[in-house]
């Protein structure tokens, strides 16, 4: 190939190698790569102060409150041990639902409410038709009922 193209290719290769090497090194330092903190971690003051970060968990059942006439919504994120209240204005993904996974990015305000500027839905690895999901839900309800008797 032309010497000019060869030089370009060598530069691409070199930059790529350097980029890869540095990112792999970063990978080794797990604390730098936390994608989200759990509510428990946030309550334990493990999350950065004054900086934007992400919290992840489940949307607490019954916690979704939509304000009339605006796209502002309040809900809570839980990891079954701790709960963090969240306030968010904007579009929510289709899969955002009570009892389902959520990852919100924003800042924790002084009054303990997480002010989110982005809310993402996190779904699990299960794939099944609606009938199967129905059946599982019924079975879980029946089991719960029989346990409380």
């Amino acid at each position, binding site marked *: *190939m032309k010497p000019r*193209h*060869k*030089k370009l*290719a*060598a530069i*691409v*290769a070199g930059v*790529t*190698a350097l*980029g*890869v090497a540095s*990112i*792999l090194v970063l*990978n080794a330092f*797990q604390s730098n*790569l*936390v*994608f*989200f*903190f*759990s509510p428990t971690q946030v309550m334990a003051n493990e999350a950065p102060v004054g900086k934007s970060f992400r919290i*992840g968990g489940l949307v607490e059942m019954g916690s979704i409150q939509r304000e009339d006439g605006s796209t502002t919504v309040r809900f809570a994120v839980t990891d079954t041990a701790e709960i963090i209240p969240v306030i968010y204005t904007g*579009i*929510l*993904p*289709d*899969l*955002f639902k009570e009892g389902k996974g959520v*990852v919100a990015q924003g800042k924790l305000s002084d009054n303990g409410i997480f002010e989110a500027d*982005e*809310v*993402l*839905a*996190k*779904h*699990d*690895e*299960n*794939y*099944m*038709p*609606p009938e*199967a*999901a*129905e059946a599982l839900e019924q079975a879980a309800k029946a089991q719960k009922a029989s346990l409380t008797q």
Partner: protein
Amino acid sequence: MAINWFKYSSPASFYSLAGKMIPIFVFLAVVLTIAGLYVGFFVAPTDFQQGEAYRIIFIHVPAAWMSMFLYVIMAVWAGIGLAFNTRLSSMMATAIAPTGAMFTFLALWTGALWGKPMWGTWWVWDARLTSELILLFLYIGFMSLQAAIDDPRRADKAGAIIALVGVVNIPIIYFSVQWWNTLHQGASVSLNQAPAMATTMLTGMMIMVFASWMYSIVVILKRVRVIILERESHTAWVAELRKKEAAR
């Protein structure tokens, strides 16, 4: 009947063997793709959670798995070429890279198109997505480095270093969803657990995985045959081949 396998480590013998094998794999690739897409779109039902958007899985997972399998195989061939100084092994590694890169790109592209409606974003820098992007950089780095070096044997050796060093990224990609908090969910299919997928959905996906294997074999064999001709153009057997082709 004893087969002398080592005879196929000569570019000349492998060239003709590969030529004979290609049509079989073309047939398998076509049949499996048609079967896989049929099951995926007309037999597998809708998903309780993701609706029809989940049907991207029939491309996304095969592409992602192939991106990883092909990298490991590329590294193995490159390593053998480096250790035993065998030309054909290195040619195989060179032949695999573009296909591996393509599948990596497709995994990222289909992943983005799947993430936007389901997660609410085209991209996040979580461990799974980031390490798959690094894989794309590794493939590109391998191909660029080999293209930049004139002497084929030196190019083989240099590429082998990138290929072998980069192999560490493969378990990182796979275990990323276990080792770190990620937006990407965990594995639906694994060797030591029951699948978290309905049977028809899983069947469609696995047929597409095999179809991707067959397709990969076809294009990699085709490509390595061209590479063999390029690098062995000075030899007697290639001259013979050309004479035969000219006579036809």
